[in-house]
């Protein structure tokens, strides 16, 4: 067989054998197994044959993110042109939203973010794999796709690169790499950007492309998010309809706007059994409960219209799920299997608190109109503690059951006293 006829897979395989044991081996292995399942079989120990390895898991999440990414292209363009030309009077999706102009502008603006995120992140993964001499880990596949979706569209590329370097090294590699990290790397990157370059990450000028340059001129456009608007103006009235919010024709971070597509992605992840439905359901419940409490406080008249919190507190509780990054965070970030709780009962507590605290931060801290990333990072830190107490509680319950069973055995054939002495 001539070299030309060799399949791509075969060629990668040959390369892999040639570099086996060399310093660069992990790099070739990574490319080989990224695209194909390897030929090798395990030689020792017990092993399970299954198709859904870590790479398959990661790729499934990426599949769930593709619709969100495509939608973000259109929305970026739509928000930009609407800000310049005014919002269309009779909005129709085909005429005003799914246009080639919108797609192209969004593509040109968002793709560089994706490329920088993957380029820098994977470079660091490869460097660490070669230094440490282990296989390249798949952890960055999903992170790399999440990062461009949770930043404002005009984020300078060098800032994104710096943040990715920080997030991957400090957020993940120092703890020992994929699977060992305490904090979600994508959110670590987002948090770093937020605290390092706040003028680029919050306010009313960053969410629509071109708003920063035009600020202060005659063409100045307002592109604030709904949450930002509510926090600034202390009102619960705004110009977007519920369907706008649900389908995502609103300004915001690149990929967080469409609750509809996020819902579809979430269902896909639940049915493919990749993400935990317990976390998603309990997080939704948590945010609704907190929203209801705030609505109740307003209804009871405990808080007047002149209070700083009135606007966001009187915001309908279920609308919290449609605006900002709450839906995106719940579906794609909170369910991260590494940083979330592992036990089933723990997942309920973990998810509930994420929703609960997110809405709380939104309302109580106008400086952070978007508190989802802070809430998830906080719960990431608490997840091991929650698991610890869930497991301890389980042990205690079973010990109690065992003791009761031995002290009062069902069959009383005269050995009860003996057993009692033994166990105690």
């Amino acid at each position, binding site marked *: 067989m001539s070299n030309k006829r060799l399949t791509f897979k075969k060629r990668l395989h040959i390369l892999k054998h040639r570099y086996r044991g060399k310093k660069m081996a992990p790099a070739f292995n990574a490319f080989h197994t990224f695209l194909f399942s390897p030929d090798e079989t395990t030689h020792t120990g017990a092993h399970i044959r299954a198709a859904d390895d870590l790479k398959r898991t990661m790729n499934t999440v990426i599949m769930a993110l593709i619709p969100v990414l495509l939608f973000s292209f259109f929305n970026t363009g739509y928000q930009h042109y609407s800000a310049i030309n005014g919002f269309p009077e009779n909005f129709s999706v085909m005429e005003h939203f799914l246009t080639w102009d919108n797609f192209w502008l969004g593509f040109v603006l968002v793709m560089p973010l994706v490329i920088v995120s993957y380029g820098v992140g994977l470079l660091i993964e490869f460097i660490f794999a070669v230094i440490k001499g282990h296989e390249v880990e798949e952890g960055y596949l999903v992170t790399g796709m999440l990062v461009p979706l949770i930043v404002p569209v005009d984020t*300078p590329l*060098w*800032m994104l690169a*710096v943040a990715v370097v920080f997030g991957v090294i*400090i957020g993940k590699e*120092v703890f020992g790499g994929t699977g060992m990290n305490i904090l979600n790397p994508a959110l670590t990157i987002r948090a*770093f950007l937020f*605290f*390092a*370059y*706040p*003028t*680029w990450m919050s306010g009313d000028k960053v969410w629509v492309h071109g708003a920063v340059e035009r600020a202060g001129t005659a063409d100045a456009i307002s592109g604030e998010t709904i949450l930002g608007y509510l926090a600034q103006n202390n009102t619960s009235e705004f110009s977007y309809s519920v369907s706008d919010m649900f389908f995502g024709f609103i300004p915001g971070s690149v990929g967080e706007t469409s609750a509809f597509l996020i819902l579809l992605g979430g269902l896909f992840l639940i049915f493919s059994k990749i993400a935990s439905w317990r976390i998603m359901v309990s997080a939704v419940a948590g945010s609704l409960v907190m929203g209801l409490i705030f609505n109740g406080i307003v209804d009871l008249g405990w808080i007047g219209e002149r209070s700083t919190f009135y606007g966001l507190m009187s915001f309908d509780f279920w609308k919290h799920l449609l605006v900002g990054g709450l839906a995106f965070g719940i579906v794609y970030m909170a369910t991260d299997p590494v940083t979330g709780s592992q036990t089933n009962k723990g997942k309920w507590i973990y998810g509930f608190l994420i929703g609960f605290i997110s809405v709380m931060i939104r309302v109580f801290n106008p400086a952070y109109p978007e508190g989802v990333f802070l809430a998830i990072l906080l719960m990431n830190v608490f997840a091991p503690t929650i698991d610890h107490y869930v497991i301890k509680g389980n042990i205690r319950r079973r010990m109690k059951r065992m003791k009761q069973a031995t002290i009062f055995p069902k069959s009383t054939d005269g050995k009860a006293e003996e057993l009692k002495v033994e166990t105690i």
Partner: protein
Amino acid sequence: MALLSKKDTNLILDPLADNNPITIQVLGICSALAITAELQASVVMAISVLFVLGVGNVVISLLRNIIPTKIRIIVQLIVVATLVIIVDQVLKAFAYELSKTLSVFVGLIITNCIIMGRFEAFALGNGPWKAFLDGIGNALGYGIILIVVGFFRELLGSGTLFGIKVFGDPVAKSGLYATGYENNGFMIIPPAALIVVGIIIWVQRSKNRALIEEN
């Protein structure tokens, strides 16, 4: 004839690297987080601790045979407090602005674990000359880390060193700022100091593997 014997040299050199109070013993972290946003404050803090620890160690060492064991902590506190007040008054007299910046942290030198740690661990059991060298060594080890952290935090966070604009003017967008560079606000807040100290520890341990604990 060398000025210091080998043993004495080690008293000064050990705390600079392999027995550093901050990176190895993890003492004095609070002040390292609080005042290192500016290089100038770091340097002044380092000098203040150098004075307090150097003099304090000698005083405690001289008193070591007459301090009743039961009340030794109180005596140590009085010695530190006296020295800290001297530092505080000198700063207020000659560098008022700076003492405003350092505010309560000069007073809090009293609670710096390194100082009480050295009194307890060294000065109470050694002669004044050795105690002096040990105090100087530990204060220098503390100061070096403070200055390194302060250097990176001020340079990356504010774009200045000792208040001098190194990268150009961020408001007028001159120098490096003309290219789109921006100051990193994260470096100003205390968690950044924790991360910088962490990176220093990481580098130190990968250079000297003997420092890594077995577990």
